[in-house]
């Protein structure tokens, strides 16, 4: 299998965990996997991306423009910022809940709606509402695992649901496992 998956969001949303689980799951199914993440100063509230490259064809850590089969966006405007990485027939899973920038001028008026409308107009997508999805778990911090469920449910990861679930069990600290697995199942339903 060869598959390029990009995950994007705002620093602190938990994109790194999601990318590691996808890469490890791909390896567990016998694929080569490479990934690259934003680390350092940019993590403090800035835009972050993870590039996950599955298969032997990828020789560099970064996905080329127009190369991603799947874009998993934790935030609407970050989805738009990274749409250029998507293949023409690629698929987008996007959270409709915006993260407003901190500076006063630009936080007014931005609600993510125009971004979602634009994404719907240019590509196939699944729009997810992290607030609604994560409400039963008490924190949107579970969105990273929930969205993995959604991605696995659509079949766009190219990985079996069981492999991803097993990897979540191996990765997530035990005291948070129950809620994370429930979040994964909730996402799975939306994806299917």
């Amino acid at each position: 299998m060869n598959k390029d998956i990009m995950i994007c969001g705002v620093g602190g949303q938990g994109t790194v965990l999601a990318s590691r689980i996808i890469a490890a799951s791909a390896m567990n199914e016998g694929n080569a996997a490479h990934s690259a993440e934003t680390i350092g100063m940019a993590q403090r509230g800035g835009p972050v991306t993870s590039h996950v490259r599955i298969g032997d064809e990828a020789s560099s850590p970064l996905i080329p423009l127009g190369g991603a089969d799947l874009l998993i966006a934790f935030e609407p405007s970050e989805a738009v910022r990274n749409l250029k990485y998507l293949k023409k027939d690629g698929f987008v899973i996007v959270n409709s809940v915006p993260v407003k920038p901190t500076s006063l001028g630009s936080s007014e008026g931005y609600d993510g709606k125009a971004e979602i409308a634009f994404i719907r107009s240019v590509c196939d997508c699944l729009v997810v509402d992290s607030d609604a999805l994560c409400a039963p778990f008490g924190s949107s911090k579970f969105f990273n695992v929930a969205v993995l469920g959604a991605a696995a449910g659509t079949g766009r990861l190219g990985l079996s649901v069981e492999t991803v679930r097993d990897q979540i069990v191996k990765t997530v600290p035990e005291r948070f496992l129950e809620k994370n697995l429930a979040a994964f199942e909730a996402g799975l339903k939306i994806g299917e």
Partner: protein
Amino acid sequence: MSKKYVMGNGAIALGALSAGVDLVAGYPGTPSSEIIETVAKYPHDGTYVEWSVNEKAAMEVAAAAAYCGARAMVTMKQVGLNVASDPLMSLAYVGVKGGMVVVSADDPGPISSQTEQDTRRFAEFARIPVFDPSSPEEAFEMVQDAFACSEKYKTPVILRPTTRVDHAYASIDTSDTFTAKGFEGFVKDSKKWVIFPRLSYQNHAVIEKRNVEIGEEFSSCRFNTVTGSSQKAVVATGVSYAYARELLKDHPEVRFIKVGTPHPLPESFLLKALEGVTEVLCFEELSPYIEESLLKLIGRHRLNITVRGKLSGDVPHSGENDADSAKTIISRFLGLELTDSAPDLTGAPQPPARPPVLCAGCPHRASFYAVKRAMKGKKAYFCGDIGCYTLGNAMPLDMVDTCLCMGAGITMAQGFNHMDSDAVAFAFTGDSTFFASGITGVVNAVYNAADMIVCVLDNSTTAMTGHQPHPGTGRNLMSAPVDKISIEKILLAVGVKKVLTVDPLDLDAAVAAVKDCAETKGVKAIIFKSPCVAIVKSDKRCKVDAEKCVGCLRCIREIGCPALSVQDGKAVIDSNLCTGCGLCAKLCPTGAIGGQ
């Protein structure tokens, strides 16, 4: 043996452990920090590992180990090599007995650094070999070869990864436990280990002769490769090679050359690889190192080859390369057709700018705000330093007037004081930065009778680089708890007139401390002590009472906390981000924020 999915930095660590490294030392710095963390994490027998106070200390600790015949590795980011350059330059002349690898991670972009300097230049300057990995897998192999090269030629050897190699993940097959190689011990010989002008004179000649030999050896090194046979050739180095390879895998006829050992230049290899070539494109990051080396080589051998790259304007001088610049630049050079495979994005809404900011609840925000409030209407200079708190420069705090390099905040505040004694000169330094290179600055200020305030933003960790311990935390990488070194006692011991310790989240007390210090002559210090919110997780949350909020938005205008935003003209707090620090509540004029 098992496969481990690790970062490039992890691959370097596992490579060193596989080579039986006896000692590893370094100072944290993005993109290098995870090397030492990985060494410390994997089970190893007999390997000593430490976070040193700074890169110079790390280099010297490692040098002594290498003098003993031990295998030693020292890790840092590129600007750290500037700090460690004093021992390195001399060590290059003295040489080593055990293998010594200096890992200096470059940061094209720059993504998390002050400079776009190129460590390959440093290797050439110090006249020592350098390996330049193009992937985590190659970094794992190279660090082992670097140890062998170091031992064979009795010289420190540099491994120069870049951010995209350091932070890329790949699977590495290694043993699960590691044992240090062991070493003979130090054999005294003052003619060998004591640097004197005569020794440097003699060794300089030896080094230049040896470098020709190493260049010859590198000419058959597995990290230097050539494929294809076209008259137009592409030379790539480091991660740029990986980007170019992805493009050129569909064009196997193109002559494609990789240089994995830039210094000493593998001349014989390059002369052979360039036979029949009329034009060559150098695709590399940071400085035009290979481009200039080829220009010299081609000139010396009077070859008729046009060299393209940064100097010819074909490759940008600044910023990092990526898969797309590889596609554009190399396709243009080779005359390949460019196809656009992304969806049509005409009319896409412009995404908002998201500059990095201090985290919600970060105690640094409160420290800056306290100083700002205390100094309102007064002339003051705010000298920042390297760490999370550099972000104090962002609006609306706007509390960092200068930032130069590690430790410079203190010494620059002193300089401003001597140039303009009417203003209050402030230095902001983190706790780890204070230990790394702040103490000498305070001594200099006291000795030279400066009038200034040193603010130590003590969050009990090295936060920006991933929360490494430092001498003030009471932990190191080897042992059970160690004695905490007191910043307050150091400041008092070097003669600081007044040393106050306050909790920055106690706003009134913090403002009073700043005012108190501003009214005292001499060098004063305030230790703003409150732990990093990423380490000490808080269950507290603040909430805006929409009934009481009058929409003045003072909270947002004055402190710029990312948990605060505006909804329907009123302030709202994102409970996923808020830590309940209560700073916003303290400045709300209507008491609308509560629930801490």
